[in-house]
C-alpha cells in the first residue's frame, strides 16, 4: 500500500534527469558548506520547494501546459507593466512588485512563460511557418524583453531573450535571416551603447580592463579570476580556498559561487561540473528529439537551452570572458527563485518525455 503510493509518487520522475540534477544539488550543498555554511538549511528548504514544484509539473501533460501558454504570458506582461508603473525600487532598479503580503519578480516568470507561449504559437502554425509568423513571434518576444531591460535587469533580459530565440530557432528560422540579423546587430551596437545605463557601460568597460577600477567595479572580476587561476589543476581543497575563506570573493554564495568551487576543486572540478551540465543538456535535447508534438519539441529544446545559457553566462562572467550580469550558476547558486524556475523546466522536460508516445499511438 505505502509502496504503491511511493511508486505512484515517483512515477513521473525521469531517472536520468533526476540523477544528474541530484548530483549537481549534492555538489551545490558541498560547495555551500565551504562558501556559506550558515545558509545550507535555508537552501535545503529551497531545494525541497523546487522538487515539489518539479514533481507537480512532471504530472501535467504537455497538452494542458499548452492551454496555459497564453494566460501565463499575458499575466507576465501585465505584471511587468505593473512593475514599471508601481514597482519597488531596489538598488536603483525597479524589479519587484509589492503585493502587500509578498514581493514578486515577474521577470523571473517570463523565463518559462516565453518559450511556452512561442511554442504554442508555432504549434498553431504547424504547416511551414511563414516569414510573417517569425516577425510576430519576434514581436511577442521583444515586448517583455524590453520591459525587463528597462527595469534595468540585463541578466534576466538576456535569459528571456535567449529563451524565446531558441524556440524561434528550433521552429526553423532561416539561416540567411539569422546571419542578416547578426550583421545588423553588430552595426547597431554603437547605437545600443548610447542607450545603456552608465553602470551597464561601466560593466562592459570593466570587462576589458578590470584593473582600471580595482576597488570598485573591477573588484569582482579580478578577485574571481585570481581564485580560479590560483586553484590550479587539483584545487586547494574543500574549505581551503584562501580567496574564498578570506572573503575576497564578493557574493560568494550566489552569482560568484563558481569562483569558490573552482578555487577549491581546480580544473578537475570544473571538468566535472561542465560534464554534468553537458549531460543534463544532452538528455534534454534527446527528450526534445523524441517529443510527440511540435509544441513539446520546441518547448523541450528551449527549456534545455535555458540551462545552457545560465551555465555558460555564469561561468563565462565569473572567469572573465563575459561581462558581469546577474545570472546564477544553475542548481548551484544560493537562492530560491532561480532554483524553482529551473526545476519547473526539469519538470516540463520530464512530462514531455513521459508523454512522448501519446499522440503517435
Amino acid at each position, binding site marked *: 500500500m505505502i509502496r504503491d503510493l511511493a511508486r505512484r509518487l515517483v512515477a513521473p520522475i525521469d531517472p536520468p534527469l533526476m540523477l544528474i540534477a541530484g548530483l549537481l544539488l549534492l555538489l551545490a550543498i558541498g560547495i555551500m558548506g565551504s562558501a556559506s555554511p550558515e545558509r545550507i538549511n535555508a537552501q535545503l528548504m529551497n531545494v525541497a520547494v523546487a522538487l515539489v514544484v518539479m514533481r507537480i509539473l512532471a504530472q501535467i501533460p504537455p497538452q494542458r501546459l499548452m492551454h496555459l501558454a497564453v494566460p501565463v504570458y499575458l499575466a507576465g506582461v501585465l505584471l511587468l507593466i505593473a512593475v514599471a508603473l508601481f514597482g519597488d*525600487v*531596489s*538598488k*536603483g532598479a525597479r524589479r519587484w512588485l509589492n503585493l502587500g503580503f509578498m514581493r514578486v519578480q515577474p521577470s523571473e516568470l517570463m523565463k518559462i512563460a516565453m518559450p511556452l507561449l512561442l511554442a504554442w504559437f508555432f504549434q498553431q502554425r*504547424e*504547416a*511551414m511557418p511563414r516569414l510573417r509568423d517569425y516577425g510576430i513571434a519576434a514581436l511577442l518576444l521583444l515586448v517583455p524583453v524590453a520591459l525587463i531591460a528597462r527595469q534595468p535587469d540585463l541578466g534576466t533580459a538576456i535569459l528571456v531573450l535567449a529563451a524565446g530565440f*531558441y524556440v524561434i*530557432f*528550433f521552429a*526553423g528560422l532561416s539561416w540567411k535571416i539569422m546571419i542578416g540579423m547578426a550583421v545588423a546587430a553588430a552595426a547597431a551596437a554603437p547605437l545600443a551603447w548610447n542607450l545603456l545605463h*552608465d*553602470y551597464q557601460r*561601466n560593466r562592459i568597460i570593466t570587462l576589458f580592463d578590470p584593473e582600471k*577600477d580595482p*576597488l*570598485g*567595479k573591477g*573588484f569582482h572580476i579580478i*578577485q574571481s*579570476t*585570481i*581564485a*580560479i*587561476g*590560483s*586553484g*590550479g*589543476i587539483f584545487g586547494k581543497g574543500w574549505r581551503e580556498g*584562501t*580567496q574564498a*575563506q*578570506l*572573503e*575576497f570573493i564578493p557574493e560568494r554564495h550566489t552569482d560568484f559561487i563558481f569562483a569558490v568551487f*573552482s578555487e577549491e576543486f*581546480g*580544473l578537475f572540478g*570544473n*571538468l566535472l561540473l*561542465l560534464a554534468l*551540465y*553537458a549531460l543534463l*543538456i*544532452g538528455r534534454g*535535447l534527446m527528450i*526534445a*528529439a523524441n517529443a510527440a508534438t*511540435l509544441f513539446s*519539441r520546441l518547448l523541450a*529544446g528551449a527549456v534545455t*537551452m535555458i540551462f*545552457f545559457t545560465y551555465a*555558460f553566462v555564469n*561561468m*563565462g562572467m565569473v*572567469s*572573465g*570572458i563575459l561581462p558581469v550580469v546577474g545570472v546564477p550558476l544553475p542548481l548551484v547558486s544560493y537562492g530560491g527563485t532561480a532554483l524553482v524556475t529551473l526545476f519547473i523546466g526539469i519538470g516540463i522536460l520530464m512530462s514531455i518525455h513521459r508523454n512522448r508516445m501519446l499522440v503517435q499511438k
Partner: protein
Amino acid sequence: MEFKNPQEELERFRSRLAVAGGFVLFCFTLLFIRFVWLQIVQHDYYQTRAEDNRISLVPITPNRGLILDRNGVVLARNYPAYTLEITPSKTRQLEQLIDGLAEIIEIQPKDRKRFRQLLEESRNFESLPIRTRLTDEEVAKFIAHRYRFPGVDIKARLFRQYPNGAFASHMLGYIGRVNDRDLEKIEAKELEANYRGTEHFGKTGLEQRYEFELHGSTGFEQVEVDAGGRAVRTLARTAPVAGSNLTLTVDAELQRIAEQAFGDRKGALVAIEPSTGGILALVAVPNYDPNLFVDGIDTQNWKELNESPDKPMVNRALNGAYPPGSTFKPFMALGALTIGKRRPEQAISDPGFFNFGGHHFRDDKKGGHGMVDMYKSIVHSCDTYYYMLANDMGIDNIAAFMGQLGLGSRTGVDIDGESEGVLPSQEWKRKRFKKPEQQKWYAGETISIGIGQGYNAYTPIQLAHATAILANNGVVFRPHLVKFITDTKTGERTLIEPKPTRTLGLKPEHIEVIKNAMVGVNKEGTGARAFAGAEYVSAGKTGTAQVYSLKGTEYKAGTVKKELRDHALFIAFAPADEPKIALAILVENGGFGAQAAAPIARQVLDYYLLGKRPKAPAQPDEAAVEEDDE
C-alpha cells in the same frame, strides 16, 4: 498551401537540435580553454596574486565636513570618543568574548544587536565597535583586563556632534546609521567603494542635502594578513580626504535670538537677505536634539519625539502650510496695481462689511473704517477693501500674480522635502477635488481669498521669499542656506551663486506705494506698538490666520482653547529704503499678529540692524489687541 510532411519536419528539427548541441559543445570548450589558461598556463601568476591577497585593504573613514555659519561659528563638528572594538577575525568564540566583556563594561542588548548587524555587513578584518563613547573610567577598567581579550581594542573614533544641541536642528538635520535606502543612493552615485567603512549618512536637513559633499573620500590601509586572515602589520596607507566644509548664509547669533524670541511658543521664522536670497535665520520651534540620532536613537526618545502633540520633528518653516491672513494684503494690492484694477488714491467706503450674494463678509472693525484708499487699507488692514478687490480681480488673476511671487510652489531652498502649500485657482480646485460639484469654483470663495483666508495656505519660507522679492523690487533670488563649500584639501571655495533667477516686471512706482504703506503699518498702523521708538525705518504687515471659525460668535482669545486660537503672522523688511533683511514669522495659536508675531520681529530686526540683544523672549503684547483690530 504546403502539405505537412511530419517526417521531413522532424528531420529538420533534429538537425537544428544537432546544431544547438554543437553550439553547446563549442561554448563549453571555450570555457574549458579559459580554465586551462587560468589554471595551468597562468596558474603561477594567479598563485602569486592570491598570496598577495594576503594584503588586504582596510578602509579609513574620512572626517565629515563641518557646518559653519556665515561668521565661522561651528554648528556641526566631529569629536573623538573612545570606542570598544572587536576584530572578528582575531577572535574565537565571539559570544563568550562579549559575555566576558560585559562583566567589566556595560554592554546593553541594543549594543549587541547593533554589533551583530555590523558583523553581517562587514568583512572580517575590520574592527567593529561594540560600545561607543566609553568614559575614562571604563577605558581604564578595560586596559587593566586587556590581556584577557585578544582581538579587542580601544580606539578613538570621530563622532558627529551638534555643539548647540537642539539649536537650528531643523536646518542642520542629523545623521544616522546607513540603511538600505541610503545604500541605494550610494549605489546610484556609484560611490560604493568610497562608502566602505562609512557608518553614517545624512538623514535630514543640510546633512542630507549635502551628504556627498560632506562625506569626503575614504582612505585605505594595506594590511598584511596571515593565512587565517588575521592582520599582521600595516604596509601602506592612502590617507583619507576630509569632506568639504559648508559655510552657511545663516547668522547663528541672529538664529539664536530668533529662536529665543519664541520662548516656549510654537512657530517658524524665516529671514532672508533680499539682495542675495541667502537665508539669515530659519527657525522652526519646537525643535529636537540631533545628537540623539547620531548613534541610533533609542526607542523611548524616539517615541517621545514622534508622539509629542507639539510635533517637534516637523519643520514648520518648510513643511507647515498656513493661511497668510492679512499679510496677503500688500501682495494683493501690488497685484491690483500691476494689472490695473486699482489706482492707489481710489477709495472705497467701508460700512464694516461687504455684501456678496446676500452674504455679509464682516470687517473686523465694527462700523467700518470709513473712506479707505490703498494706503489706509494696508496700514489699518481693512478687510472690506480686499473683499471688493478680490471680487474685482477674480481668482485666476490673483493666482497668476501670487504664483509669480513664488507662493504655492517650492522655493527650491537647499533642504529636501519642502511643502508646496496651496495657491487656490479654478484649475487647482478641479485637480484637488474628485466630485464635479466640488470642482466648481464659486465666486463667493474668491472674496475670502482676498484677505488671505479660504483655501490659501503657504509655508513660512514662501511668505519670507515673497517678502524678499517685494523688498528687492521684484528681483527674485532662490532662497539658499549654503553660501560656499570649501574643499578641505585644496582650500578651494565653491560659491553658491547669488544670481537672480528672474526679474518680475513690476513698476517701481507701484512697489513704492506698497512699501510706503508697509512703512506706515509700523509707524502708525497695526505694527506701530511693536516698533515704537525703533532707530530705523522698517516696513511690515501683521496677519491673523483663522484656525477655527466660530460661526456667528465674537472671537475672544481668552475664551477659546489654546490649540483653536488663531495663528499670528508678521512679514517685514528693513531698512525700508535699502532692505538688508526680509522676514516672515508665524506663531502657532499666538492670536493676533500684532500681539504675538510683531514683537518677535522687533527683537530680530533690532539685533540684525543695531546689534541690540533682547533681555528676554518677546512678550506677547496683550494691549495690541484692543488698540487695533486686524
